[in-house]
C-alpha cells in the first residue's frame, strides 16, 4: 500500500491546481463556495478550463480528451472541488458530450462537440417527468415521426439550470407499442428556440431557481437530431448511468466545507470561548472528519482498483454516503451559525448578505437546499435498492 502520490502525480496535481487557483478568478471561486455561482461564472470558468485542456478530459482524445489514468482523474475531480472551482457543466461534459462522442454521427460530432466543450452551447437534460422521477422506463413524452421531423409532445421536469439552456437532450417515446416499456425510447437533440416550448421555473424551498419544468406542444425536431438509432434511447441513457462518475462522493467539496467551518469556528464566540473549544462542536467535527477520511480512502480504493482494470460496484455507496456527509456538514454549518443564518436578503440567494458573514448568512438556506443531494441524481432509496440487488443479491 502507498499513501503518497507519486512524483508524477504531484506534478500533475500542481499543474491542475495552478490553473484552478491562478486562472480561475478568485471572486468566481468565492461565489461558488457560497453557492452564489452565476450563469456567467460557469461559462467563464468552463472556457478557461477548455483553453487549458481541462474542460472535457474524459472525452475521447480526438475530441479533447486527455487519456488520463484513474489517479489523475481522481486528482482532477478532487482539486476542482477543494479549490471551489465551478464544475464544468455536467450536462455538457459528462452527459450529452460522451453520448454524442460514442453514438452520434460524424456530422453531429462536428456540429456539437467543440461547442459543447467550450460551453458555446449550454445543454439541458430532458429525462425526468412528473410521473417518472426515478422510473425512467415509464416516460410518457412522445416523439411522433412525421416525414423528416419528430413531433414532440409532453412534459419534462427537474431540469436543472434549464433556464439557460440553448439545447436540450430529450428521451422521448418513439414507439408507443414496444413490448417492454424500456424499448421504444429515442434520444433527441432539441434546439430550445424551436416553437412550442414553454418553461415554468420551479422555485426550491430555499428560494433558489435552479430547476424547471418544460412543456412541449407539437415541437418539431428534425430527424437528423436523432442520436444513434431510433428506439435505442434507453441503452444510451444506461450508458450514462454506467459511466464511472468521478467525484460523485464530493469528498473534495466536503473537505473544503470542513476546512472553512473549522476556520470560522475559531471566530464564532460562545458564552465561554469560541465554537472551536466547544466539545459538542468538536465531537461533530471529529465525526465528520473521520467519515471524510473513510470516504476518501474508499475513493482511493476504487481508483486503485480501476488502475488495475477492475470495475467497482461501489458508486452507489459513494453517492449515498458522500452526499450524506455533505448534508451533515451543511447542518453543522447551520447549527454553528444559529440566529445568524436567519436573515437572508429579500430577493433570495441572488444578492449580497445584509451583514458581512456570508457563510453564516446562507447557512440555513444552504442546509435546506442540500436536502436535494439525497434525492436528485438517484435518491438514497434508489441507491439502497441498487446495492441490495447488484451487490448483496437481495
Amino acid at each position, binding site marked *: 500500500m502507498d499513501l503518497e502520490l507519486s512524483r508524477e502525480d504531484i506534478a500533475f496535481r500542481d499543474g491542475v491546481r495552478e490553473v484552478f487557483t491562478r486562472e480561475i478568478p478568485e471572486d468566481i471561486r468565492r461565489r461558488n463556495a457560497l453557492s452564489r455561482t452565476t450563469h456567467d461564472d460557469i461559462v467563464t470558468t468552463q472556457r478557461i478550463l477548455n483553453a487549458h485542456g481541462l474542460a472535457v478530459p474524459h472525452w475521447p482524445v480526438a475530441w479533447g480528451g486527455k487519456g488520463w489514468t484513474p489517479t489523475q482523474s481522481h486528482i482532477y475531480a478532487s482539486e476542482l472541488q477543494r479549490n471551489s472551482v465551478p464544475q464544468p457543466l455536467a450536462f455538457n461534459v459528462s452527459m450529452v458530450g460522451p453520448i454524442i462522442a460514442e453514438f452520434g454521427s460524424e456530422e453531429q460530432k462536428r456540429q456539437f462537440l467543440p461547442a459543447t466543450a467550450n460551453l458555446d452551447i449550454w445543454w439541458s437534460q430532458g429525462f425526468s417527468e412528473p410521473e417518472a422521477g426515478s422510473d425512467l422506463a415509464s416516460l410518457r413524452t412522445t416523439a411522433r415521426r412525421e416525414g423528416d421531423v419528430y413531433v414532440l409532445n409532453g412534459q419534462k421536469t427537474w431540469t436543472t439550470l434549464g433556464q439557460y439552456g440553448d439545447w436540450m437532450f430529450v428521451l422521448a417515446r418513439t414507439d408507443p407499442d414496444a413490448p417492454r416499456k424500456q424499448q421504444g425510447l429515442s434520444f433527441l437533440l432539441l434546439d430550445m428556440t424551436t416553437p412550442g416550448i414553454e418553461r415554468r421555473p420551479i422555485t426550491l424551498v430555499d428560494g433558489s431557481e435552479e430547476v424547471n419544468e418544460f412543456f412541449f406542444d407539437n415541437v418539431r425536431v428534425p430527424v437528423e437530431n436523432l442520436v444513434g438509432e431510433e428506439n435505442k434511447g434507453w441503452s444510451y441513457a444506461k450508458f450514462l448511468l454506467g459511466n464511472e462518475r468521478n467525484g460523485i462522493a464530493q469528498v473534495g467539496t466536503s473537505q473544503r466545507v470542513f476546512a472553512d467551518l473549522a476556520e470560522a469556528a475559531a471566530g464564532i464566540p460562545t*458564552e465561554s470561548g469560541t465554537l472551536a473549544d466547544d466539545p*459538542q462542536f468538536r465531537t461533530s467535527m471529529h465525526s465528520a472528519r473521520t467519515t471524510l477520511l473513510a470516504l476518501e480512502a474508499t475513493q482511493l480504493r476504487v481508483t486503485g482498483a480501476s488502475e488495475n482494470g477492475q470495475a467497482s460496484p461501489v458508486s452507489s455507496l459513494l453517492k449515498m454516503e458522500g452526499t450524506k456527509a455533505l448534508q451533515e456538514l451543511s447542518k453543522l454549518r447551520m447549527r454553528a451559525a444559529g*440566529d445568524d443564518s436567519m436573515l437572508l436578503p429579500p430577493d433570495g440567494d441572488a444578492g449580497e448578505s445584509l451583514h458581512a458573514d456570508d457563510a453564516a448568512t446562507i447557512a440555513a438556506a444552504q442546509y*435546506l437546499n442540500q436536502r436535494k443531494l439525497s434525492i436528485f441524481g438517484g435518491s438514497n*432509496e434508489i441507491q439502497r435498492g441498487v446495492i441490495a440487488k447488484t451487490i448483496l443479491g437481495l
Partner: protein
Amino acid sequence: MNLEFNEDQKLLFETVDAAVGRGYPAGARGEATSTERGWNDDVWNTLAELGLTGLTIDGDHGGVGAGPVEVYATLEAMGKHAAAEPLLDGVFLPSWLIAALGTEEQAKQWLPALAEGATTIAVAHAEPRRPWGSAPSVAAAHSGDGSVVLSGVKAPVRHADQASTLLVTAVDGDTTGVYVVDAAAAGITRADGRSADWSRASQVEFAGTPATLLGTTGTDATAAWHTAVARARVAVLAEAVGLMESALGHTVEYLKNRKQFGVPLATFQALVHRASDMYARVELARSMALWATATVEAIDGGADVDLPAIADDAFVFVGDTATAVAEEAVQLHGGIGMTYEAEVAHHAARLAAITESFGGLAAARRRAVASESALRAPSALLNNA
C-alpha cells in the same frame, strides 16, 4: 396528574384550527409570506376577533389572561397550518416582557393595543456573531436632558418591518435593560430581509436613537428577560409539534396516493417503516412539548422549577426531532418535497427556523449539557421523586 387539554382548551384548539385552516389552504404560506405585510391580514383579523391577540394579556389590559396551555393549543393549531401570523413573536413575547418588566403606566400604554391586534411589537435581542446568552453590545447612553439613546446593531429582528414599536435589549454600564423604541424614531436604519422560513426579518441599526427603559431604572432585566424568553421557547415548540404532525400527515397521504413503478409508494415497506418511526418521534416530541407547557403552568402556580433549564431540555429534544422529521418528510416526498410549492417544504423551512431561533439548538444543548441537571435522574412528575 394529567397532560390533556380540558374541554375549553380543546374547544380553543378546534376554533383556531378551523379559523386558521380556512385562511390556509394548500400553498397559502408561500402567498402569505410574500405579501407586503408578510402574513395574511384576514387571518390576523380573525385571530384578533377571537381574542387570541389578547390571549397572554390580563383582563385589566384588554386581554383574556389565559395560561400556557391555551398558548400551546393556539400555537399547535397555527403550526398545523404553517400559519405565518406572528402571534408569538409580535404579541405574546412582547406582552410577557412588558408584564414582567414594565411599569403599570407602560403596561397601560402597550398591552391594550396588542390585545386588540391593532399593532405588533418586535423584540430585538440577537446581534450578529454574538452568543444569545451574552449581554448585548447595543449600548444605552444618557444625554444631558435625562433622555436615553441607543447605539448598535440588532439582527435578525423578526417582523421588525411591520412593528410599531421595538423592545430592544441593551446595556447601560453593567446593567442590562429592555428598552422601548418607536419604530419610526430618529436614528434607526432598517435593512429588511427574510428568514429561511420566508417570514420577515430585518437588521436594525441604532445611532443615537431615543429610547425608554421598560420598567424602573437601576434594575437588571437579565433574569426577567431569560424567563420571558424561556416561556417563548417552550411556546414555539407547540408550533413545531403542529408543523411536524402536519408534515407527517402530508407524507402519509403522499405515500398512499403517489405511484412509482406502477404501484403506490405505500407498497414499499422501507418507506412505510420510516413513516412509523416519524410517527413515534412526533408523539414523543408532542409529549415533551406538553410536559414543558405543563411545567410552565406549574411554575405560574408557584412551583419552584428552573424554567430556562426546562426550556433548554425541551427545546433540544423537540428541536432534534423537528430536524429529523422535516428531513424525512422531504426525503419521502422526493423532488416534489424540495419545491416552494410543496407544503412539506414550508414545514421543513419553518422547522429549521425554529431550531435556530432564540440562539439556536447548538447553544441550547451546550447549556443543557453543562447544567448540573444533565445527570439528574429524570422524573416528569414534580412531586414524585
